[in-house]
């Protein structure tokens, strides 16, 4: 357009002024062009950005059911409401059974699971770790115990040979896998060396395991340290009645992960809100002001790296658990 305008301008003395005028016009047109291009570029980028799209929708957080669907939602709906308030976008809490999680993960934005489910979803679905939960004496770590009654006569893992045992949920790293790992590493194959073993049906499996041992239904049980501690603290059991025969290695506790659907910057903000969460932070839900961490039964969130889960991966390999199962 500028070239075409130069041909139209005349010649002679007035040409200098005309040239100056032309240069000024060129600069103005260039500025306008850069401005329009930049505007269009920003407009296109902002329309295509996942974060812009995601800001207008409800984010789904899948919470692994620990004891029951009702209990899980009771614990985590306030945290979900708190995240909505802090992030300025709506979040929805969805309680999901452990055995259904990998089937539903692709419909979620964030995941709240145990360390084994994270390892499975990280490998098979690209879920990335954000933060680990802190609770109980080990903070952000968890540990599986093999417990028996003090008067059982069982003192070591090898004493379990010929005895019966009850395990918790199979996809629970500290309710099944850690204890299986301890047994196998001590030369006890549950299939051949235990007289019998089983997993209780229904909800609250960890408690059923501990009560199953307390009431003598089984000689030994596989329970997470945290659940054992909570039952002692609540006065439901007397810790002095039990003997801890063995402990699994400490591994990361429950954690938040992010799926591939979520934009990085949004995930970072989500993580920061979790890390900043303090005792005493409240949220209003169903007309009630609720302490977020107390209701969730946790002490806070801490940073955690994917490599922290390598111990879980190695344990899963040793015990032929997913995502490394071989048939």
């Amino acid at each position: 357009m500028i070239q075409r305008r130069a041909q139209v301008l005349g010649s002679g003395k007035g040409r200098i002024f005309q040239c100056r005028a032309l240069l000024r016009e060129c600069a103005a047109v260039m500025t306008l062009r850069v401005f329009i291009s930049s505007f269009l570029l920003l407009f296109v980028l902002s329309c295509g950005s996942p974060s812009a799209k995601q800001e207008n929708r409800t984010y789904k957080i899948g919470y692994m059911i620990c004891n029951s669907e009702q209990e899980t939602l009771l614990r985590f709906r306030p945290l979900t409401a708190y995240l909505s308030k802090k992030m300025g976008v709506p979040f929805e809490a969805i309680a999901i059974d452990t055995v259904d999680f990998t089937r539903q993960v692709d419909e979620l934005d964030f995941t709240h699971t145990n360390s084994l489910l994270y390892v499975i979803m990280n490998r098979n679905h690209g879920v990335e770790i954000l933060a680990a939960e802190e609770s109980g004496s080990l903070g952000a770590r968890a540990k599986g115990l093999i417990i028996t009654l003090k008067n059982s006569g069982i003192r070591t893992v090898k004493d379990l040979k010929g005895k019966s045992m009850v395990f918790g949920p199979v996809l629970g790293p500290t309710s099944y896998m850690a204890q299986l790992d301890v047994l196998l590493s001590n030369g006890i194959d549950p299939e051949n060396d235990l007289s019998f073993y089983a997993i209780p049906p229904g909800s609250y499996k960890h408690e059923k395991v501990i009560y199953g041992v307390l009431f003598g239904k089984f000689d030994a049980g596989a329970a997470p340290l945290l659940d054992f501690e909570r039952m002692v603290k609540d006065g439901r059991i007397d810790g002095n009645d039990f003997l801890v025969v063995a402990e699994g290695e400490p591994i990361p506790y429950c954690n938040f992960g992010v799926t591939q659907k979520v934009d990085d910057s949004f995930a970072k903000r989500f993580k920061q809100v979790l890390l900043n969460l303090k005792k005493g932070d409240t949220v209003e839900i169903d007309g009630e002001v609720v302490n977020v961490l107390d209701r969730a039964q946790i002490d806070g969130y801490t940073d955690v790296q994917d490599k922290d889960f390598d111990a879980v991966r190695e344990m899963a390999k040793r015990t032929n658990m997913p995502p490394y199962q071989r048939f």
Partner: protein
Amino acid sequence: MLMLTCVPIADACVGKTLYIGAIDSAEGQVLSAILVTIISERTGTTVNTRYYKNARELYDAVSAKQVDMLIENTARAMRIINKPPEGDLQRTYETVKSTYEKYRGLIWFKPFGFLNGGGEGQSYTAPVLKVEVLNNFPALPRVVGKLAGTINDDTYARLIKSFESGEKAQKVARDFLKSKKLI
């Protein structure tokens, strides 16, 4: 082979309830009751059985994600994968095992032990489970594996006779599993 290769590997169909697919016959009812009982008693998982008139309906149900595991024998499996019968039972078993896993994501477990079930002549019969079921229920290989070699031809005949003389499949299954100290 065509039947297996044309059907894409199914997405996970695992819910909180597992479904066993079985042919509606004395053998299907008794063996599925044994699987239902041992899995539910040992792993706390709810398991139900869905019966089908024939193998075609059963495999359609597997493809439609209505079934998580089934009971199959190697003779029928060879027909399904369009392979000629082999004289060597172990080689037949290895053939169907590898083909089912590769093309359909179905894992053959070790055979129950009897050779003359289901009117198929000499053939192994075994539980067959979907891979995604095993991923979500990782205790199943250990628990279902306990049934390997537990039913010889005499035991099989006795179990079927008990059922055909009027005992319920669930009772036949429980009595059998208790006698083996499996529940």
